[in-house]
């Protein structure tokens, strides 16, 4: 079996070192605010000049998985007032930490991530070859359909505003058309400039939007004052009590079951997976435990963290079998493959099977390393969390400049970096998600080629695009996904509003406002009774995509879409959204 051969490669000492390097860097950037795995892979793209493909891909995969673990540490231990309430799932861990249970929260997140990551990687190993075997048979028309799904879900479902996401996507597609047309060699939108003749490099745009845009945006509203990290004490073996284990193992497994399929389908990404897991844990909890939700329930950490990591593995299914990235980090992995001229698509499992299986095997190894790095060695990351912010963001700018300069070794690229970075700054300021732009830029040329091939076959008849049975199914599924997502988004904001309201009541308690005396009973009663109806529909959520997947072709149809930035660290608060797709 090829997986064993993959292990034989990944277990060589040199590749183990590369994997370790990858997961170390990945965890570090996952922990650090303002920097995420997509940006890191973009910044480290110069590695592709000097490393051979297997080594570089293993490093990048390590960063991808590592980023997922690191994010949870930040959301649990970093005490940033007034901000974390935006994502419900990040909140339980933080609440646990404030109540002195931070160690248990960290442990359940790490162990849950490991279990879910490992199970999901097993699923990936078994599912991906079948999807690839199926995908080999589909033609350009079906590809066009899949990519339309990917574009629309990435553009419209990511971020809070549909129009802003689509605008971001369209800007990315526009930049993608600049330079030589690959089929006819005609210049497009180069405005006579030799610098634009080859188009604008993907790495340049990604680094500018993720790194420079982020640094400028944070600088404009930098939170000053000391960085408050909640301390964790005691030996790591005693972090989880027996009861914690008993309460965690079921949410871990449920999170895995929810996360993996959601990762493979276009339903809005890991954010959706973590939310679904959180909602179902909250629904399933009984009695006193239910009342803990919003105040530090361990189930609310265990489930979403597991779902988050399982979704991360799920995202690799459409990436490796169809060449369709559904998150920002997956898009950057695709760029890495492109740098080596390795075509990513259904043929990948046949043509480059050694590389793919080495990559998958390295994910198993990386998961094990990450468990060690995040339990006994979590202290290191807590220190990293305390890096002075001026140094952090100054360093990000230096790395961005390095990445930009090394694209073509010309300072002009650094100036283009700055211009695109300012664009990224305004996009953040005005609520435009940047991830759709990067995905549009990367998928744009592939989409155009497939579209033109489809229309060349049909001799220009656009009806051919929807008349293939598989393509028609894909479009129908797209509509279903949209309806479901909007419905789910409403549920999500209802739940968030409610939890935030609970929290605000709690805060009132603490500060002893006049309402304090009435508060203790109030919020609890509200929380439990109010929640039940709001959440009741959610557990159905995961079942729906599953049912759809029963239709032949539907599963891969979904695949491409899950872009939400979340996949790298869904549960870890807003950081995910930044780099979302």
């Amino acid at each position, binding site marked *: 079996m090829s997986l064993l051969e993959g292990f034989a490669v990944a277990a060589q000492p040199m590749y183990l070192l590369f994997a370790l390097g990858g997961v170390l860097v990945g965890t570090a950037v996952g922990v650090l605010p303002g920097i995420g795995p997509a940006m890191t892979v973009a910044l480290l793209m110069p590695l592709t*000049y000097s490393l051979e493909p297997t080594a570089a891909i293993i490093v990048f995969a390590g960063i991808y998985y590592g980023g997922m673990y690191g994010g949870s540490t930040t959301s649990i231990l970093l005490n940033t007032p007034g901000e974390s309430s935006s994502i419900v799932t990040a909140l339980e861990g933080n609440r646990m930490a404030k109540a002195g249970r931070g160690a248990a929260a960290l442990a359940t997140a790490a162990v849950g991530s490991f279990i879910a990551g490992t199970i999901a990687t097993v699923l990936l190993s078994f599912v991906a070859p079948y999807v690839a075997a199926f995908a080999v048979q589909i033609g350009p028309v079906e590809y066009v359909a899949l990519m339309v799904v990917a574009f629309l879900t990435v553009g419209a479902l990511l971020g809070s505003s549909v129009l*802003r996401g689509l605008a971001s996507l369209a800007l990315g597609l526009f930049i993608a058309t600049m330079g030589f047309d690959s089929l006819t060699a005609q210049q497009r939108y180069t405005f006579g400039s030799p610098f634009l003749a080859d188009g604008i490099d993907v790495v340049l745009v990604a680094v500018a939007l993720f790194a420079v845009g982020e640094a400028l945006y944070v600088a404009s509203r930098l939170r000053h004052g000391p960085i408050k990290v909640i301390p964790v004490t005691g030996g790591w073996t005693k972090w989880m009590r027996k009861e914690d284990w008993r309460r965690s193992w079921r949410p871990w497994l449920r999170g895995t079951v929810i996360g993996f399929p959601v990762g493979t389908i276009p339903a809005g990404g890991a954010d959706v997976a973590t939310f679904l897991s959180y909602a179902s844990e909250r629904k399933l909890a009984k009695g006193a435990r239910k009342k803990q939700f919003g105040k530090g329930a361990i189930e609310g950490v265990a489930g979403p963290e597991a779902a988050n990591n399982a979704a991360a593995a799920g995202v690799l299914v459409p990436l490796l079998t169809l060449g369709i990235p559904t998150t920002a980090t997956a898009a950057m992995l695709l760029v890495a493959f492109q740098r080596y001229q390795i075509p990513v698509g259904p043929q990948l499992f046949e043509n480059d099977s050694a590389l793919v299986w080495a990559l998958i095997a390295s994910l198993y190894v990386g998961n094990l390393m990450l468990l060690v790095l995040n339990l006994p060695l979590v202290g290191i990351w807590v220190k990293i969390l305390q890096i002075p912010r001026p140094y952090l963001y100054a360093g990000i700018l230096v790395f961005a400049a390095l990445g930009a300069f090394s694209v073509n070794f010309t300072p002009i690229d650094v100036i283009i970096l700055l211009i695109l970075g300012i664009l990224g700054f305004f996009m953040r300021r005005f609520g435009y998600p940047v991830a759709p732009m990067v995905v549009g830029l990367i998928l744009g040329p592939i989409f155009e080629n497939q579209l033109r091939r489809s229309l060349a076959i049909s001799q220009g008849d656009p009806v051919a695009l929807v008349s293939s049975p598989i393509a028609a199914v894909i479009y129908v599924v797209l509509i279903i996904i949209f309806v479901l997502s909007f419905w789910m988004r409403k549920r999500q904001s209802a739940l968030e509003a409610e939890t935030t309201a609970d929290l605000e009541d709690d805060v009132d308690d603490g500060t002893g406002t006049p309402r304090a005396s009435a508060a203790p009973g109030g919020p609890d009663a509200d929380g439990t009774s109010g929640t039940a109806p709001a959440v009741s529909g959610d557990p159905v959520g995961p079942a729906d995509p599953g049912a759809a997947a029963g239709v032949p072709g539907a599963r891969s149809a979904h695949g491409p879409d899950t872009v939400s930035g979340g996949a790298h660290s869904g549960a870890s608060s807003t950081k995910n959204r930044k780099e979302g797709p």
Partner: protein
Amino acid sequence: MSTSTSSPAGSGTTAAPGRPIGELIFALIVISVGVVGFVAGASIQTPPSASDIGPKAFPYLVSGMLVLVGTGLVIQLLRGGTGVPEEGEDVDPNIATDWATVGKLAGFVLLHSFLIVPLGWPIAAAVLFFGAAWSLGARPWFRNLITAIVLALVLQFVFAGLLGVSLPAGFLEGFGVFSG
């Protein structure tokens, strides 16, 4: 610290005065990119040999999307639907925009781009780090300076020396470990 000047509500989503205008300009830029796409797209040559829809069709499609979405955004903004600024662990939603710092950072990146060739990458990088850290409020200056120099040398060593990325070494030219 957090001296809140503009939005007392503290939600961060309520607009400071003037922001809708900025957003409106941004939406208009989206439309104008689409218009430029149509105008400049007209001059794309379609070779007679092209057997498919040619190189023009897709750019037109994207330009049309930009115009449509941009128009939708303008309408949404005029009806009062403003965007929600991104949140982040290090972002304080309650303080006013610090344009001076943004300007300084952009200035140092620009300066960096002009220094790479004449002075070499390590010096240009050290200047960028030192300037950015200072702009963001790091003190004292000598600690910033030492950090900047150490970081620049380490990066030059790792990327140029070890990984073979051709960063111009500047004054370090001739030291094998620092050149790519």
